[in-house]
């Protein structure tokens, strides 16, 4: 992945053209090229300048901002994480109950209504929904701000906005926007799971034991349908973090998504590469977490232990 990105970024024009005034002299250009390691052939740039630095824990200095790319990303990561986690929570706490309801009553108007809603959630493009949300809630109704992060609180050296009222208000629209697709996805998954589980003998047996409906639904059924949902949500959480680009751009949310867009526009090669490395790392980490959660939920995949 890194190689592909590196080469494709290399092919995308000359960063010095963007960085220096068009009337700068050739010496200035050469000096900058030398500093940024751009005067060497591709393979040397890759192995000597890039891999060498990475092995020393250095992902490069941003061409544009003149700070290390990792520093830049980690400064803006909390904003994205905050947004992604909010969206994930919305997806879980809205998607699963609605999906189970639709699965338990597939023929009722409620069930059909929920499914229609999920089709909309799936098919409406995120950027358009984002713009519509701004138009409705920020421009027409003036209930919520149109963009930005609002007030933030510093915890462990990171800025978070979900702890202040102003920040929460700013967080609401982008989180809903980002979550919409995931909610639709979770609704479909939990509906399908519920419809499958509801006819299982163990649910009938649970009813034959005289258990109350809430206990059957929220323990016996939920725990069984959670397994596929966790798998998908794990992967989707990675993509929430990685590809919140659209939402962040629409809502001027200062996260890594908008950083990526800016960096691509300015051909800021080290930032883009560092960003992608981070995303890859996140996906791996999330998959590990999903596997661990799996074994908590499903005793059949636990290794070792009692037999």
């Amino acid at each position, binding site marked *: 992945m890194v190689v592909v990105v590196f080469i494709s970024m290399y092919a995308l024009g000359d960063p010095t053209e963007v960085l220096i005034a068009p009337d700068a002299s050739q010496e200035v250009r050469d000096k900058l090229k030398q500093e940024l390691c751009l005067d060497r052939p591709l393979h040397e740039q890759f192995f000597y300048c890039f891999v060498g630095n990475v092995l020393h824990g250095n992902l490069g200095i941003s061409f544009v901002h003149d700070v290390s790319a990792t520093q830049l990303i980690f400064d803006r990561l909390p904003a994205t994480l905050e947004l992604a986690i909010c969206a994930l929570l919305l997806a879980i706490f809205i998607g699963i109950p609605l999906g189970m309801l639709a699965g338990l009553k597939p023929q009722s108007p409620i069930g059909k209504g929920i499914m229609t809603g999920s089709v909309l959630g799936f098919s409406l493009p995120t950027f358009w929904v984002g713009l519509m949300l701004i138009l409705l809630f920020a421009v027409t109704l003036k209930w919520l701000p149109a963009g930005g992060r609002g007030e933030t609180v510093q915890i462990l050296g990171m800025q978070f906005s979900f702890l202040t009222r102003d920040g929460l208000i700013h967080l609401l629209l982008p989180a809903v926007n980002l979550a919409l697709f995931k909610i639709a996805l979770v609704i479909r998954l939990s509906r399908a799971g519920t419809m499958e589980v509801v*006819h*299982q*003998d*163990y649910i*009938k*047996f*649970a*009813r*034959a*034991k*005289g*258990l*109350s409906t809430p*206990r059957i639904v929220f*323990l*016996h059924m939920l*725990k*069984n349908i959670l*397994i596929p949902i966790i798998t998908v949500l794990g992967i989707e959480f990675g993509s929430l973090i990685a590809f919140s680009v659209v939402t962040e751009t629409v809502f001027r949310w200062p996260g890594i998504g908008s950083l990526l867009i800016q960096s691509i526009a300015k051909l800021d090669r080290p930032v883009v590469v560092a960003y992608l490395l981070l995303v890859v790392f996140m996906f791996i980490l999330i998959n590990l977490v999903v596997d661990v959660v799996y074994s908590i*939920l*499903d*005793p*059949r995949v636990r290794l070792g232990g*009692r*037999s």
Partner: protein
Amino acid sequence: MNTSTRSLLLEINSLQTWFDTRAGTVKAVDGVDLTLARGEILGLVGESGSGKSVMGYSIMRLIDLPGRIVGGSIKFYGEGTQNEDLVNATSDRMRRLRGSHIAMIFQDPMMSLNPVLRIDTQMIEAIQAHAKVSNKVARDRARDMLGKVGIPSPEERLQAYPHQFSGGMRQRVAIATAMLNKPELIIADEPTTALDVTVQAQILYEVRKLCRESGTALIWITHDIALISGLADRIAVMYAGRVVETGLVRDVIAAPRHPYTAGLMGSVPSNNPRGKPLRQIPGMTPSLSNLPKGCAFAPRCERATVTCQQVPQESPVGAEHKVRCFHPIESIPAQSRHDRIKV
């Protein structure tokens, strides 16, 4: 084991359970009368699709849509209950009855326990659904019951998950769960069909013993007439949603009066001469959505006449022996036949 000498526990009158499907109404149970005394073991026998499982689910009121109980009554005379009709009981009332007064055991032990919950969770919740009992007490009761159904080291096994048990062990767990609240009636829907023969025999023996000890009545639903003849006090043979013959096991087995029962008995392998093809009942079970007019068995019956275009009523042919047939087989001294049946 005589019905009249014991008090009545369950009285089903002309019960009808129908399923509305696109292809028409499926009359899975269509006018069944049954009675059950306290502590009695009733074998409910029939082919696949005869409506015997639907009977069991109807009593539990666990019929899922598109099925519904259309008519009839299920009177339950349980201890501390108001002799109510289960057909009209509220769903909350049914929830209270299920598991405490009436329990059920299912056919496939691989499927009837929740795979993601521990055995203790699944057993304790069955107790706590009906009585305010501390976890500790409920757990002790669950453990004792597991011991009673023959599960070794029950204390440790409580901690296990269903996938750590074999099929036979799982069915024992299911039986233990059903017996936790000392129900007055257990409905067993082919609980040994999915198990191999040796395990089948053990489970049969244990269920019978437990029911006798605790005075629990049992409805054992099965297609295995040879198996039921060794277990039950009374037998009811179902065909196409109706009970065609009912009586004490020894009477029905020794001298079946309905041609269908006789056909079933005749097709038990041990009742067939060696080396000859097995006898069978000609034809197929009729589709329940398109039953023949009159007696549903008539098209397959060699005794059928024009009269069989009418629906036969239940008529007594002996003490507690009733049959739904215009041309019942005459009572023959079938001593030799009885001797041949392995029970």
